[in-house]
């Protein structure tokens, strides 16, 4: 029995069908990440779970209880917002204890919970400060602390790292992963950053236009994308796609063939399966990305971990690992 269950969930904005009958089962303690391009409905779906958006159709079941129409406050969920949404006129302590104070929890118990959360998040020294006096990373931790003290059934995160700079984002990502391991709480996390999705998730849900494209473990999505969209969305740089005519040897009746950049190799032009002209060489130190054009119009990228002597305009051949080839039919579905 799933812990949090979405059954045929629908959302309309006027005539616009934003979420189109989403089905999803989330187990207790799982870390689920919603990813997708802008406007795919991932944030809307999260807000529907939180009760901030009305669910127009279908059912939402938490721990065996139908909460489709339950007000947010009674759903037993806590959310971390993109802007953190801290109450600016309250101290860190008051921010974290706000929900408990409203619920008239015993003050001694509130004190204990806040102190415990503050300790866990390294905020003990800042309890008497207001959010204005904190750095971005500290505000982020207060927002998480505010969620933790309520011990909710599910944690919801709405792109929590997008306002942090790159270094802090990496560090906070690790902290969130640690926190999840420690608390073991069910978590739904929305992001557009696939690194966050790949590193944090137990399972990733890829969304497009209000539809779930694929659900699976990060590596499952990477190794076995169900369709063209997922293959392009997961992986940086993107998987190379070529019409099947170029590679009759491995096409096996597919319309398009996809190969990840790291499964390709630049070789001498003679006798190679494919050949192209180098357009750009990006040397990143640990890896080298060779951008090339096949037959003058299909751009592909080859990733290699040895340095290269190739220059722009050189003609090169490409070898690839035939066992790592992805095949898609004319509809874009994986064969």
């Amino acid at each position, binding site marked *: 029995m799933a812990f949090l269950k979405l059954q045929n969930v629908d959302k309309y904005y006027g005539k616009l069908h934003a979420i189109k009958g989403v089905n999803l089962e989330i187990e207790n303690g799982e870390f689920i990440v919603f990813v997708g391009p802008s406007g795919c409905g991932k944030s809307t779906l999260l807000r529907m779970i*939180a*009760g*901030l958006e009305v669910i127009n159709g279908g059912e939402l079941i938490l721990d065996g209880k139908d909460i489709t129409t339950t*007000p*947010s*406050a*009674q759903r037993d*969920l*806590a*959310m971390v*917002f*993109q*802007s953190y*949404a*801290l*109450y*600016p*006129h*309250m101290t860190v302590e008051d921010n974290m204890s*706000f*929900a408990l104070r*409203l*619920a008239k929890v015993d003050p001694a118990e509130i004190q204990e919970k806040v102190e415990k959360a503050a300790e866990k998040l390294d905020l003990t020294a800042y309890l008497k400060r207001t959010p204005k006096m904190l750095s971005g990373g500290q505000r982020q931790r207060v927002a998480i602390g*505010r969620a933790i003290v*309520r011990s909710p059934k599910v944690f919801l995160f709405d792109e929590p790292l997008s306002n942090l700079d790159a270094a802090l984002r990496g560090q906070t990502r690790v902290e969130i992963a640690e926190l999840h391991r420690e608390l073991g709480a069910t978590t739904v996390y929305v992001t557009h950053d696939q690194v966050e999705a790949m590193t944090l998730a137990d399972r990733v849900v890829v969304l497009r236009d209000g539809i779930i494209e694929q659900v699976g473990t990060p590596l499952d999505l990477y190794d076995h994308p169900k369709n063209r969209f997922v293959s392009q969305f997961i992986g940086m740089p993107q998987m190379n796609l070529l019409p099947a005519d170029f590679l009759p040897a491995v096409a096996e009746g597919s319309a398009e063939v996809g190969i990840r950049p790291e499964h390709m190799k630049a070789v001498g032009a003679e006798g190679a399966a494919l050949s192209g002209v180098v357009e750009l060489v990006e040397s990143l130190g640990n890896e080298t990305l060779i951008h090339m054009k096949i037959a003058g119009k299909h751009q592909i990228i080859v990733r290699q971990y040895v340095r290269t002597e190739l220059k722009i305009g050189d003609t090169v051949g490409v070898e690839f690992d035939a066992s790592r080839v992805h095949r898609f039919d004319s509809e874009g579905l994986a064969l």
Partner: protein
Amino acid sequence: MQSSSAGNRFVPRLLLSPAVATLLLWMLVPLGMTLYFSAIRYNLMSPELTGFVGWANYEFFVTNPAFTDAVLNTLVLLGSTVFITVAFGLAIAMLINDPFPGQSFVRILLISPFFVMPTVNALLWKHMMMNPIYGVLAQVWTFFGLEPVNWLQDLPLFSVILMLSWQWMPFACLIFITSLQSMDREQLEASDLDGATYLQKFRYLYLPHMARAITVVIMIEVIFLLSVFAEIFTTTNGGPGTQSTNLAYLIYNEALVNFDVGSASAGAMFAIILANIVAFFLIRIVGKNLD
């Protein structure tokens, strides 16, 4: 270097000085003349009596039986109008904050009383609303079988407060609506998840957010309401007796009814002192929101 930096400061100061001097004169000349008039015998009814009289004008003004009433009326008028406009302004601003059809039209209607001139406002209320025979309020009272109230005679100060509140509430409302528009939506959603009721949101989120706007409204209203004159002059003439006389009206009475310029000037000096006392307490109470 030393001389050039001193020169650098000298030129801007020189260029600023005409503006500063004009402003200073604009303030000091009337103040000086008022001070001077308050210390001499200066009555237009008996211009032959002149000369320095010391504190006599002050003594005369302060011992006037109308004086205590005027001070109290000024403070009551100020306090009630500020309280009513802020309370109702907040309530209405909150009420029309969420989108509904015709919202912008309603906002314009709400703000329009502020564009009515004080004299016109007073006349509207005096004749259209409060007239005990043909006024709208009298009609309503009669409809319910009640004796119509003779507002300006029986409740003169309250009537003036009502007119002023009608005029100033739109101003408060306008400032509060603007302030509400910058309220953070995610904070409200977070408080939804935290289980806050509407009243708790008002208390813990809206009020702190609007503290600065409320302060601004109170400050501006106090400045204008300390010297209310047109509404009183047009409706009650400070009466009956001194029931609706405030300090500004009393000064007018001394200067242009009794033609005692000396005593009126002494009253004006007292009004300055009263304004400063009010400002002192006001800044003590609400000024900390303006940091």
